[in-house]
């Protein structure tokens, strides 16, 4: 047994244990911490499976931003821990467990019986990379072969923002989301919020840029930029912008908007909707990705900030 195998077995056991612990533990806060750790370890599994793009996304969303969101929710719920009061009876819990085990077993059986090597479109994606000039297959799939899905997913993000904003009280509509954070200006949080963002911004942009040929891309880069922005907001160094600002609205639609315009130009003058002329493919895709990283960073940041709750005037 090689060291790598031992590592994999330990990793799998820890992930399973954390998963069970997250479900079993009673306090919302502990469950959240367990879930964040679980997300980070799942990212490690993706690395082991050579799916670095997925790993980056899982770490950024499952471990990072999702964790921040859940911790915030857990903090708000701490005063009224409703979960503990409504625990279902033993029979219900036992049957739920039994059914879940059965479903998992069926799923595991189906996965184990999948053909090996699995049928895959990866060679086809590699063979057609000439059309875009980018060598990261994941980016090619997202931006060229299945560009429609990616564009619509960005619209889903926008709808999520509208959903969160629609929870605002009418009096605060157009105002600033979330509470105004106050932190000790000489404390460690403010220090970190001054130290990390320059580094984080460079890393985020690098991940976007390298996404053309290596693992990375707009979503992962955007998540890093969003976390830097949030850090400065939580440290009280910056405030969330009022949601009625026109520039903010522009940033929030920039990605899907540019995508749609390129698509429609392709429909009118090119081969098809969302097709790129091979000579211009790389600059066009990079342009869309630059717009997307801004959109994604702003969207994720605002999703975490919450509904508008303060009037725009200071």
């Amino acid at each position: 047994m090689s060291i790598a195998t031992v590592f994999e077995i330990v990793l799998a056991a820890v992930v399973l244990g954390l998963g069970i612990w997250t479900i079993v533990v009673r306090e919302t806060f502990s469950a959240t911490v367990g879930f964040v750790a679980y997300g980070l370890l799942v990212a490690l599994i993706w690395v082991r499976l050579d799916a670095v793009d997925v790993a980056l996304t899982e770490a950024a969303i499952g471990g990072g931003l999702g964790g921040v969101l859940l911790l915030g929710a857990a903090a708000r719920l701490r005063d009224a821990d409703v979960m503990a009061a409504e625990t279902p009876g033993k029979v219900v819990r036992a049957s739920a467990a039994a059914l879940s085990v059965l479903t998992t077993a069926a799923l595991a059986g189906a996965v184990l019986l999948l053909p090996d090597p699995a049928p895959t479109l990866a060679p086809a994606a590699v063979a057609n990379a000439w059309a875009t000039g980018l060598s990261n297959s994941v980016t090619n799939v997202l931006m060229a072969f299945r560009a429609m899905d990616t564009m619509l997913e960005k619209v889903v993000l926008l709808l999520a923002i509208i959903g969160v904003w629609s929870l605002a009280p009418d009096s605060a509509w157009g105002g600033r989301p979330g509470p105004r954070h106050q932190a000790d200006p000489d404390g460690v949080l403010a220090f970190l919020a001054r130290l990390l963002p320059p580094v984080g911004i460079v890393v985020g942009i690098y991940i976007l840029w390298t996404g053309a040929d290596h693992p990375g891309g707009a979503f992962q880069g955007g998540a890093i930029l969003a976390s830097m922005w949030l850090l400065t907001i939580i440290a009280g160094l910056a405030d969330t912008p009022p949601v009625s600002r026109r520039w903010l609205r522009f940033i929030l639609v920039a990605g899907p908007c540019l995508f749609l315009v390129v698509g429609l130009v392709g429909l009118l003058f090119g081969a098809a909707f969302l097709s790129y002329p091979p000579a211009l493919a790389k600059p066009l895709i990079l342009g869309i990705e630059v717009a997307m990283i801004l959109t994604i960073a702003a969207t994720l940041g605002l999703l975490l900030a919450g509904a508008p709750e303060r009037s725009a005037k200071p």
Partner: protein
Amino acid sequence: MLPPATVPDAVTTSCGFLLVLSIAVPVAGVLLAFVLGDRWVRLVAFTIIPIVLAIVAATVLVLPQSKGPLVYLLGAWTPPLGVALRADGLSAVMLAATAVVISAVSVFAVADFRPTAAEPRAPFAFWILLLAIWGALNTIFVGGDLFTLYVALELLTFAAVPLVSLDGRPETLQAALRYLLFALLGSVLYLLGAALLYGRYGTLDIVLLSSRIGAEPASLVAAALMTSGLLAKTALFPLHLWLPPAHAGAPAAASAILSGLVVKGSFFIIVRLWFQVMPGLLGFAATQLLAALGAAAIVFGSVLALRQERLKLLIAYSTLAQIGYLFLMFPLALDASGYLESGEALAGGLLQAASHATAKAAMFMAAGSIYAGLGHDRITGLHGVARVLPLSVLAFAVAGIALMGVQPSGASLAKDLLLQVATETGQWWWAVVLQAGGIFTAAYVVLVLAHALASSDKSVTLIGPASRPRDIAALILALCSLLLGLVPWEPFLPVPYDSTSSLFGPGTLFKLLLPVLGGVVLAILLSPWPHPLASSARWKVATRVLDPFRRISLAFGSLVERGNSVLCEWPAASISLLVLALLFGALMLVAT
């Protein structure tokens, strides 16, 4: 790796660009309205709606001329690497129904969601979400790839959930959260199934997949997971815990969209999965189970509808029953070799979906007008409302008549088709359920009309002005549903020519009288509220005869209500979801 496959229709057809536009134009509207903001949102919506209406009309007109479906290859990439959009007859019917309902609802909502300076939040969200729902539904109807359908489902969910809590009352927030959580559970199950299918067959394109799929563990597990996930999103009994509070709590225009259209999105994907991707996998037992759930939904939904105090809740529970009706087509479509046939049963099911979309939206709109006029929607407080709001009550009545299957409504044609197949295949028990469904529908429509048409000793005062354009929008939509049976369906659906022939025969009279008379009896027996004629002398004689029956029926009703409140708790609903997934898997395994 599988041998390089050729897709039979891997070329863009001449008018295929219409399919792209039917998605891209509403999406462009969403983006534009979001940037321009509060004051311009409604204007953007009213610019986009006619354009999309024209695109859909062109699609429907072009389709019969082209041989086979309209196809568009996105980015000029052929499946399986790329994604294709395809529109067949089923897509055309649903595209058209959606366009009609959205247009009518937008006329209805003009006044309610006026972007004023005082309260711009709700109009901003409503108009953008309306366009988003339209784009999402069009994507579902023309999407040719299971992952594209997943993205469209997500779009639909995220556009539909905020509509529930537009007016911001705490109970609507709770309903919206319930809806969001259950719908996301459904999405996850669907995605899991799609991933399994890709892992086994290396494609998610519907046409390619249908030629590769076989009865194997991966496809059976995937089918079971996807079906139960989609059933949760469609709110088929017993997975309906989220529907009544969400549909009854939303503003009237939003309820019309949620009840008329949004549940049809996931229903349509179920149809695509079973009739096109894997028609050979479902088998006899699983189709019977699907329809049995449908029958249970009809009984539960109708009995509960008759016991509601508020009109909007009654309509929401009626949606529950009507969703059940949609699933009766599955066992009827099964041919002798255990293969789901895209024949008359499917046509009947889809026609029922289109009729319900139009009629139910009209009902919610009429209920909204009544609520706006009276300031409440208690059914027992509706006496005399027909005198002050005649158009609203008329719209409700026409929609109700269309829904209970009176000729020439779409529901009647659908029922004829399904009854015919039930006779041909010898499945008489589903014929009974089909007839019972019509009678139950008549029962709650008659109940509401009896109260609305009853004279009132007090004069009814309106708190808000009656709005004629709103009522006319509802009425036109209701008339659409009533006249759907006269539409020439042959280019789109396999509907035989002679099915609309005898409009004015004795059969028509029977078809009118059976549900209405049966409905009156059921309404008297099952509704616990005082009857509008309860004080008259003749009624007292009738009561003496009916009383023992009524007591038994009411006991049955309260039993159903108690059962429902158990099923509508989270643990029970989640357990039902898992049980259904396992049951479907097991039944399909036995069948193959």
